């Protein structure tokens, strides 16, 4: 019996009888983070980092959920389960599973750099590593985030001078708050779409702090939009809600924006290359630091990245899952309604 098996419902630990980020209803689910493709509806009980709980409750309703601190251990039928920071969004965790000296780590989604709002990634040594590969190609290399936010500030200022609103599209959980906490609030007022405002309220419950913002309602006067920065989820693009913000410029913040094709297809005025996933160098760094003997590559360029790892002399193989990476951020995920709250 393997410690972790890849089943039709998700990653399963038979000895501990629990699943990690399952995509079908099960009894016991350990959840890496609160994004909808990892934290799904219908589990009898959830175990996750305590910072994820308010958001999961906000999204999934009245669920039975228990919280862990990073590094805290939980025994499940002799299997030791603990969480370590993944740096992806607030509360995001890697799951470490240990039984009779054998250690597995399931990364969930992760990035290595410190985004200022999520507990920074910690490398965990293991025998088997299950890693994501959303951006597992050497063409994906992020520039320093300071540079991206400088571009974003300049863009906002320029639009503001022309009396235009600046609409930035990004996931309502994680990306939106990262932007909110890194943009220069002295440039002008910051307004929020309801989905992001609601995520913020849940994250404030989880202990986070944000600069001053205003929720856009149907009574918000039109002149408030001029020169403001408006953060909205990707699903708002082209909606009637968005038409009311005219005149505006619209930008998308996503790792996919590093490719011209995706940028042009999205048809926004500006693409900012800002991702909460590891880029090529970070993925390689994380794999190396884990010192794992066996690497399982999930969602992303699974075949290519595992072939590359094999060439580096590692024992790697691709695994099929139903996670989406960042695709719905540019309106290309299978689950288009992911962001609709």
């Amino acid at each position: 019996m393997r410690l972790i098996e890849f089943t039709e419902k998700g990653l399963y630990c038979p000895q501990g009888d629990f699943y990690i980020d399952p995509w079908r209803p099960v009894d016991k689910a350990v959840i890496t983070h609160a994004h909808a493709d990892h934290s799904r509806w219908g589990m009898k009980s959830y175990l996750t980092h305590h910072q994820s709980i308010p958001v999961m409750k906000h999204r999934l309703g009245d669920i039975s959920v228990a919280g862990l601190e990073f590094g805290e251990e939980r025994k499940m039928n002799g299997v030791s389960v603990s969480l370590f920071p993944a740096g992806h969004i607030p509360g995001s965790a890697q799951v470490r599973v240990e039984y009779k000296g054998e250690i597995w780590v399931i990364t969930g989604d992760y990035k290595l750099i410190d985004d200022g709002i999520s507990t920074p990634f910690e490398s965990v040594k293991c025998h088997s590593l299950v890693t994501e590969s959303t951006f597992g190609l050497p063409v994906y290399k992020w520039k320093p985030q300071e540079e991206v936010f400088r571009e974003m500030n300049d863009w906002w200022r320029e639009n503001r001078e022309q009396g235009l609103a600046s609409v930035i599209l990004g996931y309502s959980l994680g990306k939106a708050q990262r932007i909110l906490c890194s943009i220069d609030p002295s440039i002008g007022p910051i307004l929020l779409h309801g989905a992001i405002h609601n995520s913020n309220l849940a994250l404030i419950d989880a202990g986070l702090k944000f600069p001053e913002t205003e929720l856009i309602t149907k009574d918000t006067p039109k002149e408030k939009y001029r020169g403001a920065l408006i953060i909205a989820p990707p699903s708002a693009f082209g909606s009637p809600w968005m038409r009311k913000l005219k005149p505006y410029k619209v930008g998308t913040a996503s790792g996919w924006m590093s490719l011209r094709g995706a940028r042009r297809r999205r048809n926004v005025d500006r693409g900012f290359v800002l991702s909460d996933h590891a880029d090529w160098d970070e993925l390689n760094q994380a794999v190396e630091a884990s010192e794992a003997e066996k690497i399982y590559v999930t969602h992303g360029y699974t075949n290519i990245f595992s072939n590359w790892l094999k060439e580096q002399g590692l024992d790697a193989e691709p695994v099929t899952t139903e996670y989406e990476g960042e695709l719905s951020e540019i309106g290309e995920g299978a689950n288009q309604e992911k962001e609709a709250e």
Partner: protein
Amino acid sequence: MKDFGELILALDATTKTNDKLDSMVSFLNSATDADKLWFVALLSGKRPKRPVKTSFLREWAAEVSGIPLWLLEESYHVVGDLAETVALILPDVTETSEKTLDDRMQDLLGLKSLEEEEVKAYIVSAWAEMNKTERFVFNKLITGGFRIGVSQKLIVRALARHLSEEENLIAHRLMGNWDPQNVTFQKLLVEPDENENLSRPYPFYLAYPLEDTPQSLGDIHDWQLEYKWDGIRGQLILRNGEIFVWSRGEELVTERFPELEKLKDFLPNDCVIDGEIMAFKDGAPLTFNHLQTRIGRKKVSKKILEESPVVMIAYDLLELEGQDLREEAMDYRRAELEKIVASAKADSLMISEKIEPLNWGEAAKLREKSREVLSEGLMLKRRNSTYKVGRKRGDWWKWKVDPMSIDAVMIYAMRGHGRRANLYSDYTFAVWKGDELVPFAKAYSGLTDKEMQSVDQFVKKNTVERFGPVRSVKPELVFEIGFEGIAPSTRHKSGIALRFPRILRRRLDKRPEEANTLDDLKSILDFYNI
């Protein structure tokens, strides 16, 4: 080259025509004449021959980046653009060089006299002194085709604004086969010498497809109707006893068509004629396949001349005895044209006959039958229209017959390029031969973004096998494939080749076994290739 790099970035970053125009004008206002000339040449597709093989670029880029070649290839299939892939995988640099666009172009032109090792040394050191954007532009200078949504019309508008000149004048000056290596910006656009312009064609007036009903055009008697011929658009120029034939792609093709070249001894006056070059024999047009044997062939054998002779079917007169007639009404131009064609009495020059239905209903019936005379539909031209520049709505419309179509099953998918990069958007279709599916066409256009995404998801979930960038998929999805022509082919397994195949729609109502058969396709072939 920073300014040019930034211009390309700015053009790429917006879909708004006015923003593009502003960026171009501000580049022109500050660039040197040499850079301006390259800007015009490169964006209008007049690039010098590729100085370095792309296979070398791949090898060198992989080597410099420390990744295996297969990984670069895989990345290329995702990115959908080699120049961009190479720009992205190369290591970042801190110092950049001050070389101008002209400097880089001169460097690249000089490469052809160098040994491979020297070329490699130059390319690798050039990459090491450029940021990502410049690197992308530099690679594009080598591999070709910017594809950043800048039409010739927009280049003309930017130049007109920069030079404070009329757009038509600029458009005319840009026509013809000038070479950026043998002309200066001043000579080409500011101080043209009339004697050198003997061969210069006028910009073609192009029709839009009819969007509304023909009844919306008003009284049919205000319109001149002709068949829309399925040849290649051409302009025949006779000035000072010299003859020139231009294709719409602004290529001088006089030598390829001796039948048209000899018209210089028949035409009564100096003139410029707009018309269709068609394969034509024994009083009737031949299929496009015949014309195809003539295109791209500079020296034509006697045999081909006999099998596939060409004529010009004239439909407009743009200049007569040195006088520009484009501002005259079409009725007048047509009358003058008829006189010229009649007095030339040449086999290889005929008039595009008017067709005169009494009402739009009759016109519609003629359109339905237009394939029987090997035409693609009807042309509708307002009788008092002037001859405009480029594609314009209002006075000229093409009213094409619906394409032929067949229902087929998708069996292979490949990731696309440009806007469709990283999406499975290019498909191979098959029809049934017994219980085997035989591929017969590839197509990638015709679906909405949303439909394409859903097919993309299908491909990812239903992959049977991978062959490099191509995936074979479960034969499940049925599409209606439209095409403009069909011909026998020995190069294809199906034995047929289609012209302009494209996806008309997804047939959600059909199961794969209900798709058409190879016999169905062959019966269409037999019908149109007598």
